């Protein structure tokens, strides 16, 4: 299983680039059986601050597990991981004996930052209404760094997300964020990190009510984007036939058509997945499949095409968009050599990717493989475990959230409001 992680000592460097390149940053969470608001009020990191997490069982993900190892961070970067790391004088030491140290969790199917209350439209920023093709729509400036969802996820070890637009045929551009920072600029890791679209049942309306129409429309769109690129001058002289989308959206598709930017397409039914693979071959796309409910049926094709899948491993309710879901989906895909990314497909409960990963293990995924995807503590996937310390960009973040505030207020009744 995969791997939106590169070697922890070389952040932002990756052999295959793309999503995996961009979604990695330096973050660790160490965890233990007992959490609570231990870290509340810890000092902010200073430039040049050095932190050494020592004595823990370290899961670097990029390599084998290390017992009694040290993770050394400086200036927001991991500078060393190993059993023979010298801790510099003056480094802040974190004793992780008996604990597990892993990269922070990354959720790549979420709208954290661009949604607050599902049913309150005024708090949702993820969909550009009225446009089926919104390739130029980037959600970045819809991000609300003050969202209550961010600390709720962060205190449970989710440190990074890909926040994605939704709806239409081409929904727009997703961004990679760290779940820390007062300003959008502080949070963003990469923008855009991918173009997101859908060819599942939900997209049928954009193709005139037919999956075939959806695929035809995508091809016309891609052809128009290429044609526009070739004949930009003609376009400016108004000597081009009508294009199937505004040029801003065609422009935004060019990095996708050059294979520079991944395109994440939601597809669940086997035939939809195969449609996506065919499209990717025709246009040499850097394709990622999102959903992939029936992916297990085409695991070999996905592996051969080196197409990663983003899945919820607990999807098992049949629908006409995927009549044959299977709890072994993650295991079968993984075993076939497909890069599998477990994601929440949720925002408020992004934190449950631990539970999803744990269940994927229960249904056959190797733990170590799964640990690539969702990473945690004392066994991070177990309900008995919790994040005890979370570091983002090398700094320890306070384990506080509005939910913890409510708990404190109402732990004994009647509550005190003053």
């Amino acid at each position, binding site marked *: 299983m995969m791997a939106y992680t590169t070697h922890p000592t070389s952040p932002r460097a990756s052999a295959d680039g793309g999503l995996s390149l961009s979604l990695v940053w330096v973050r660790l969470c160490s965890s233990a059986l007992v959490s609570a608001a231990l870290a509340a009020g810890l000092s902010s990191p200073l430039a040049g601050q050095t932190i050494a997490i020592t004595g823990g069982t370290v899961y670097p993900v990029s390599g084998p597990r290390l017992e009694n190892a040290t993770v050394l961070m400086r200036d927001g970067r991991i500078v060393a991981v190993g059993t023979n790391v010298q801790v510099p004088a003056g480094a802040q030491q974190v004793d992780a004996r008996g604990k597990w140290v892993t990269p922070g969790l990354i959720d790549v199917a979420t709208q954290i930052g661009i949604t607050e209350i599902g049913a309150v439209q005024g708090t949702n920023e993820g969909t550009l209404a009225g446009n089926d093709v919104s390739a130029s729509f980037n959600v970045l400036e819809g991000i609300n760094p003050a969202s209550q969802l961010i600390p709720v996820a962060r205190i449970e070890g989710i440190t990074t997300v890909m926040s994605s637009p939704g709806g239409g045929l081409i929904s727009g551009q997703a961004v990679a964020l760290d779940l820390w920072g007062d300003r959008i600029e502080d949070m963003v890791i990469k923008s855009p990190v991918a173009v997101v679209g859908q060819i599942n049942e939900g997209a049928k309306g954009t193709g005139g009510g037919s999956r075939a129409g959806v695929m035809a429309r995508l091809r016309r769109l891609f052809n128009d984007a290429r044609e526009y690129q070739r004949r930009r001058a003609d376009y400016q002289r108004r000597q081009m036939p009508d294009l199937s989308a505004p040029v801003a959206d065609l422009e935004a598709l060019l990095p996708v058509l050059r294979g520079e930017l991944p395109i994440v397409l939601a597809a669940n039914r086997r035939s939809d997945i195969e449609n996506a693979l065919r499209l990717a071959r025709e246009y040499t796309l850097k394709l990622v499949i999102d959903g992939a409910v029936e992916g297990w*049926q085409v695991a070999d094709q996905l592996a051969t095409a080196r197409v990663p899948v983003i899945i919820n491993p607990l999807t098992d309710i049949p629908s006409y968009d995927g009549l044959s879901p299977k709890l072994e989906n993650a295991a079968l895909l993984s075993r076939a050599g497909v890069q599998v990314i477990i994601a929440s497909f949720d925002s408020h409960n992004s*934190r449950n990717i631990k539970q999803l990963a744990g269940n994927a*293990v*229960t249904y056959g995924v190797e733990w170590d493989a799964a640990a690539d995807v969702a990473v945690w503590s004392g066994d991070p996937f*177990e309900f*008995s475990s919790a994040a005890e310390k979370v570091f983002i960009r090398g700094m320890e973040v306070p384990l506080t959230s509005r939910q913890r505030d409510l708990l404190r207020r109402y732990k004994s009744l009647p509550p005190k409001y003053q």
Partner: protein
Amino acid sequence: MKLHVIGLTLSLTACAGAASQTAQQTSPQAAATPPETTSVDRPQYPSTYRRTPYPPVLIGNATILTGTGQEIAGGSILFRDGRIVAVGQTLQAPADAQVVDGTGKFVTPGVIDTHSHIGVYAAPGTFAESDGNELPVSPNTAHVWAEHAIWPQDPQIPLAIAGGVTTMQVLPGSGNLIGGRGVTVKVIPVRTVQEMKFPDAPYGLKMACGENPKRVYGERGGPATRMGNMAGYRSAFIAAENYRHKWDKWLADKKGDQPERNLRDETLMEVLRGHILVQNHCYRADEMVQMLDLAREFGFQIRSFHHGVEAYKIADRLAEAGTAASIWADWWGFKEEAMDGIPENAALMFQAGARPVIHSDSPEGIQRLNQEAAKAMYAGRRAGIDVSRADAVKWFTSNAAWVLGIDSIVGTLEAGKMADLVLWSGDPFSVYSRAMQVYNDGYLIYDRSDPTKQVVTDFGLGQVKR
């Protein structure tokens, strides 16, 4: 209380205890004379549930969480003919018993979900199967019964069984102030709802507070506000009081014409009589307390709030009222009234001496109520609340049975109780454990290691690849 007792409540009163169905079958005289009965005296969609015979079973050397607050290490359980015979440290296997080795495994009562829409919102989830909300017809649809819409071939049923669920309450949705009757069913593959209906289980009445009725009726004549919601319930129960008065009077003196039947009022009358248990969708603390006052005004009990994301704020009041809260472990934020949900909700209820239940309201969630309870239990422990596995298992077994009014029949592992139980591969509060065997009324309804013991509904035949 006999089968289909709620439907027959009127007739029992009317005929002074003469069960019309039996009389018709056994008395030749009754067959000869045209019966002087009307629809109200006849059976109302009675349960035709029948236990499937199965040999006696002894599960030995397992950790048993009894649902009564006990955890027995290295325990055994023996059941025969659908009844638990004994639970204890070491039991002798009768000669005819199947013996199951429980080493390393756990046994709990069968999982009970107090809040499901399986069958009324069946997969594959198209409009054709969308039968859970009688909308937008009237904010009071007390006349509709969920059981009239449950599709027994819903492919979600086998998924729930594989999650250890033996009993569930199927409720109408929450778009109306009063959504209609819910029904408690055995989770088994049969042809008809009647065969699923849990014998002797009382009906539930689905009521809903807050945003949903406002949203549905706000621009359709109301209720548009929470004021309107409260006025709507009160008007409905005032009408039901009058209806009850009319019927009681007629039943006492039989003077004049029999009052006209009205299905809406009939259901609410049975609530007032205490025969139907109120199951109230309600999120906010302040609204729940309004509903407790409403129940006091009309002299009934609210058996359980459902969803109750703010139950922890009034855990003391709920304990005092004897009203349970059927809640999610950690859902929050999908709408404004759900913003204050916290994972410690169940544990704080427990701490206050109230009755928490982990419910699903979800075809996914119902498959893992043990995991949901685990999250809630550990969140409580991390907050310093001393809640054990033996306590937390009640949240999806015995407390749930109480909410459904069937706690004298199921929900715990005790001699004499119905043999609904789950054999787990390990600690049910671990993410790595799964239901290995599920017994419903003593019958092995699911065995993870035996594909012939895994149900496929008609929907799955031929089109769902396995």
